[in-house]
């Protein structure tokens, strides 16, 4: 039988990177001298040759329609010879050589609803996951929470008014496709109830040994149910990580009443000053409250406000907290410290305080 597709290319890889670089970059590749932020959202790079490149950064939603991509393409044609790039945090950047085009481009972007900013000591785009839009294991929606939080924090996107960079990330379950575990503020959706075993489907859909082996705490055991091979879960040992669901679709985790969000603080990936750090738990649980999650927005806003008021220049969230100490962080933010803040997984003891280096306050009265 003749194949339908006669020419079929495979393994060609991505387009070569030189194809899409504007002439000013082709000419000055590897020969940039310095850069500076001219104003929020506008970056100037100066080459050894004296050539100048202006990058105008605009907020884009990660979930984008082709119609908006076409708009960006049209703007690139109009203002910068058709050259643009995306950043690692889902922003769009227009690459200009004509300084006079900066102001009209910014005006047009604002008019179309894509504001310019997100540079220097500011809050830029939140990297996030799919959420209810397209994921099977989501404990919340990603796009909705991100939109709600950024509407509130928007002044910090357009201005550079914070002590240091503040990077926020959102993941809709512990799989953390958004790898939020090293962010200044991480919003992490969590499941809190046992996987629900579909006893009809499980024997057909899942390999029992793989399912049992998937559990990091050994909470899953093989069990005969109604004469068929199935599993049982030891409730006390389950920490709702969802790894079993990943290998066995018949063990669903979603729970409308008990799924929600947790908030983590003080992580970073950059090596500047302090070494990279993980984010640490600030708030164990806030219920899902769509469409605008006001409790989550208020909690994030509070942490940002306290940081903005108290941190010193250049200090990232984690560096500031390390300087003042966690007891003072909880006091200043008014966040309650609970038993859930104390680690109880692998190497938990490493986070216990093992010295008398404590900041006491005199007894009142």
């Amino acid at each position, binding site marked *: 039988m003749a194949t339908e597709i006669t020419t*079929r*290319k*495979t*393994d*060609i*890889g*991505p*387009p070569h*990177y030189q*194809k*899409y670089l504007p002439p000013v970059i082709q000419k000055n590749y*590897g020969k*940039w001298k*310095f*850069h*500076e932020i001219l104003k929020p959202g506008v970056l100037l*790079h100066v080459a050894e040759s004296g050539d100048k490149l202006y990058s105008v950064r605009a907020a884009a939603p*990660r*979930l*984008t*329609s*082709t*119609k908006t*991509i076409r708009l*960006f*393409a049209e703007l*690139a044609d109009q203002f910068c010879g058709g*050259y643009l*790039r995306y950043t*690692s945090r*889902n922003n769009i950047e227009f690459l200009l050589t004509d300084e006079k085009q900066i102001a009209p481009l910014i005006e047009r972007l604002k008019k179309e*609803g894509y*504001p310019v900013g997100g540079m220097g000591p500011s809050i830029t785009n939140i990297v996030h996951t799919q959420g*209810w*839009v*397209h*994921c*099977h*294991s989501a404990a919340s*929606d990603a*796009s*909705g929470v991100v*939109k709600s939080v950024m*509407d509130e924090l928007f002044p910090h996107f357009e201005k550079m008014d914070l002590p240091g960079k503040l990077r926020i990330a959102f*993941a809709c379950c512990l*799989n953390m496709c958004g*790898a939020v575990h090293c962010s200044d503020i991480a919003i992490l959706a969590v499941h809190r109830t046992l996987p629900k075993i579909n006893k009809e489907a499980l024997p057909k859909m899942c390999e029992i040994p793989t399912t049992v082996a998937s559990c990091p705490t050994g909470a899953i055991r093989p069990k005969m149910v109604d004469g068929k091979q199935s599993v049982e879960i030891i409730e006390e040992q389950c920490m709702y*990580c*969802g790894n079993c*669901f990943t290998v066995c679709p018949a063990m669903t985790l979603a*729970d*409308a009443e008990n799924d929600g969000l947790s908030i983590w603080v003080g992580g970073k*990936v*950059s*090596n*500047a*000053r302090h070494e*990279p750090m993980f984010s640490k738990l600030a708030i164990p649980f806030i219920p899902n409250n769509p469409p605008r999650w006001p409790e989550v927005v208020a909690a994030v806003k509070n942490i940002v406000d306290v940081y903005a008021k108290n941190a010193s*220049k250049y200090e990232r969230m984690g560096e500031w907290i390390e300087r003042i100490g966690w007891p003072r962080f909880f006091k200043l933010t008014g966040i309650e410290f609970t038993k859930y803040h104390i680690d109880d997984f*692998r190497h938990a003891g490493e986070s216990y305080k093992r010295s008398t280096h404590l900041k006491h306050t005199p007894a009142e009265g």
Partner: protein
Amino acid sequence: MADKKKPTPKLDELEKGPWPSFVKEMKLSAETNVAAQDLLGILERSYDEKIGHWKHGGIVGVKGYGGGIIGRYNDIPQDFPEIAEFHTIRVNQPPGWFYSSDALRTLCDIWEKHGSGLTNMHGSTGDIIFLGTKTTELEPIFSKLTEAGFDLGGSGSDMRTPSACCGMARCEWACYDTLAAVYNITMTYQDELHRPAFPYKFKIKMAGCPNDCVASIARADMSIIGTWRDSIQVDKDQVTAYASGPNRDIARDIVGKCPSKCMGWDGKNLTIDDSNCVRCMHCINAMPKALAPGKDRGATILVGSKAPIIEGALLSSVMIPFLKIEPPYDDLKELIQAMWELWAENGKNRERIGEFIQRIGLGNFLEQIGLEPVPEMVSQPRTNPYVFYDIKKG
């Protein structure tokens, strides 16, 4: 086009406010696409019920590839038939995410004809994400993509699409050519990218300097982070110019923030003890006109970072303190292949390489891949005296 638009009062709330709205984007696509209309409908249902409606995976793909497509089906297809099948396509992004307007329009042409018109620019690993299409559209999309010079990215237990910062294209701090390196590595390992044969996923991210704009130290099984061996380059006139600017305090903001306390400022001269500098980038970030990384540039190779699933989150740790990253990248490829061989042979199902190293021990891992242990690999030597001595080996 049969109109499937349903009221979305909850989602409509998310069209308000100054931040760009994903609901507006979905509605833009829904003007001309029934699948996007159903997607709005099912999302509104999720907002009502506080629960997602997507089922677990399902194996779909294009002929000859094991990765690049993620199967997705909803659990109420009777209500939302246009997205009964709604698969994701990962398209390998151009290195550094640089585009021409024509390239973007070509991608839009393909996706509007064969899918929902909704995308992620970009996904967490760096790919262009085409969000939602039917199984029958996969081969035509693949055919048109390759015709246009694009190929699929990774998914499942394969080498995931490698990604890189903008590097030398637009940054004076790039200590190696991230775009050239990521392109070379991606092309060298097309088979590993498209045909999953590992215990689990393997991500490679390339950052040109220790600022790590692609978060490689947290998000990549192999993190290649640019650095330098010689002295920070100092332009004395620019140091003076910086010092005379408004609200400038070199003693407090530069010297005072140096993590290795290797700098001095007497009000006129900035001194740097480069032998004690840990290449953190702070002073260079703060004074980009006055200071720059040295000229003897390369990268630190770190291995093993990952998100929490399964044994807890890890950051990458040092495997090679300093390596020149230059074509044909033989040293780098030798390391990659040695690690893959050991891990593929001995790793457990769904065990990332970082977890594998923790299980067998970094010392044993090094021995197996033929690397000598050096003190740069640890923050301190062990404190526990339970040593697995091997007196036969010496």
